[in-house]
C-alpha cells in the first residue's frame, strides 16, 4: 500500500473525537479503583472505631492532606506523562513538597519530644506492616490507573509507569489511613512514604513492559 493510499484510508469517513473521552476514562479508573480499594480495606482490616473522634485531631487532617496532596501530584504526573510530548514540568516539585513538609513536621516532633518517646514516634505500633498494607490496598488503583494510561500513548514508559504507581500508592495510603491509627509525623514521613514507594517502584518496572504501544 502506498503512503498516499494509507493517508486516504485513514482520513476517509473520519469521525469527531469526543474531547471528554479522556476525562471519562480517568473517572472510571479512579472511581472503580478507589471503591475496590476501600472495600478491600474495610473487609480485611476494617475502618478504625475511633475515626469519628479523630476528626477533631489536627494531625489526622494533616495526614489526610498529606496523602491527598501526594495523590493529586501523582495524578497530575500521570496526566502529563500519559500523552506524547508533555514534559514533567513542575510535577517533581508537587511530589516533593508534601514529603518535605511532613519531614519538617517530623523533625519538629522528634526534637521537641522526650528522648525516650522518640522510638514510639518513629515506629508507632504498626511500622512493620504499614508499607505492605499500603502497597496491597493500592493494587486495585494500580490496575485502574495502568488501564487508563494504556488507552493513551506514553512515550517515556518507565517514568509514566512510576507516576502511575505513585498515584496509586498515594491514593491507597489515603484509603488505608481510614484504618491506620498512627498519627505521628515521623511515622508517616517514613512508613507511609515507604508504602507509596513500593507501588512506585513496581510501576517503574512494569511501565516498559505493560505500557508499550
Amino acid at each position, binding site marked *: 500500500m*502506498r503512503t498516499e493510499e494509507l493517508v486516504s484510508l*485513514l*482520513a476517509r469517513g473520519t469521525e469527531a*473525537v469526543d474531547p471528554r473521552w479522556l476525562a471519562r476514562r480517568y473517572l472510571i479508573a479512579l472511581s472503580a479503583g478507589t471503591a475496590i480499594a476501600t472495600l478491600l480495606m474495610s473487609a480485611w482490616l476494617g475502618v478504625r472505631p475511633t475515626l469519628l473522634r479523630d476528626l477533631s485531631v489536627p494531625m489526622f487532617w494533616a495526614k489526610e492532606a498529606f496523602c491527598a496532596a501526594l495523590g493529586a501530584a501523582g495524578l497530575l504526573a500521570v496526566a502529563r506523562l500519559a500523552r*506524547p*510530548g508533555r514534559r514533567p514540568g513542575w510535577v517533581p516539585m508537587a511530589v516533593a513538597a508534601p514529603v518535605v513538609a511532613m519531614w519538617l513536621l517530623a523533625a519538629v516532633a522528634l526534637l521537641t519530644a522526650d528522648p525516650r518517646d522518640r522510638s514510639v514516634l518513629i515506629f508507632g505500633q504498626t511500622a512493620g506492616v504499614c508499607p505492605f498494607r499500603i502497597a496491597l490496598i493500592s493494587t486495585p488503583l494500580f490496575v485502574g490507573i495502568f488501564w487508563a494510561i494504556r488507552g493513551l500513548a506514553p512515550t517515556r514508559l518507565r517514568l509514566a509507569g512510576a507516576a502511575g504507581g505513585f498515584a496509586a500508592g498515594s491514593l491507597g495510603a489515603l484509603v488505608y489511613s481510614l484504618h491506620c491509627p498512627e498519627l505521628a509525623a515521623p511515622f508517616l514521613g517514613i512508613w507511609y512514604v515507604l508504602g507509596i514507594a513500593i507501588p512506585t517502584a513496581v510501576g517503574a518496572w512494569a511501565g516498559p513492559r505493560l505500557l508499550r504501544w
Partner: protein
Amino acid sequence: MAQHAGSSGPPPISSHVAVTECGDVTNTRKGARLVEARLRGLLLGGLAGDSSAYHAFLKDLSAHLRAFLRKRLVNLPEEVEDLVQELLLAVHNQRHTYDPRQPITAWVYAIARYKLVDLLRRRSRKESLNDPLDEEDDLLATSDGEAAEARRDLAKLLADLPERQRAPIIHMKIEGLSVAETARLTGMSQSAVKVGVHRGLKALAAKIRSES
C-alpha cells in the same frame, strides 16, 4: 538542509517556505511556525470530524515525517517509508491524546521519537542514529513529498485481520461507504462497525510492531 520538492503536484506550502528561505535559520524557524499553525488548524478540524482537513493534515505530515526520518535513518534508507506509514497509523490511532493547548510539533515529535527509538532498538543498530534526537524544531522545518516504495504491504496485513475488523475497514475506509451502508452490507450493528474500524486500525499497528 535536506529539502526535496514534491515530484507530483505542487509541493506542500511548508517545503516552499523552507526552500525559498534556505540557509537562513531565523526564517526557517519562522517557516516552521507557520507550518505549526497550519497543521494545528487542520488537525483540530480533523478532530472535530472534518475529513478533508484531516486528509490535508496527514498528507502534509507524511512529507515532514519523511524528511525528518530520511535525515536520521541514513544507514537504513529502506526503512524510511515503512516508518512513515507506521507513524501515520500511530498518529491516527493516538489522535485523541493531542491536547489542543500543546504545540503540535511537540506531540508529533514525541510520537516520532518513540517509534524511531523502538525501531532502532528492534534493529539494535543504535549507531545508525545520526543526529542526537533532541531538536524538535527540526521536525516541521523540512518536508519531503517524494514517497519511496514501502517494503511492508499494509494491504496484506489488513487482509489478515479478523473479519469483524477487516470488513468494516474495507467498506468504510477503502470503498468509502457510510456506517449505515457498511452495517447493512455486513449484517453488523452500526456501533460494531465503528468499533471494528477502531480496533482494526489498532490491531494493524500492533501487527506492524510484532512483525518487525
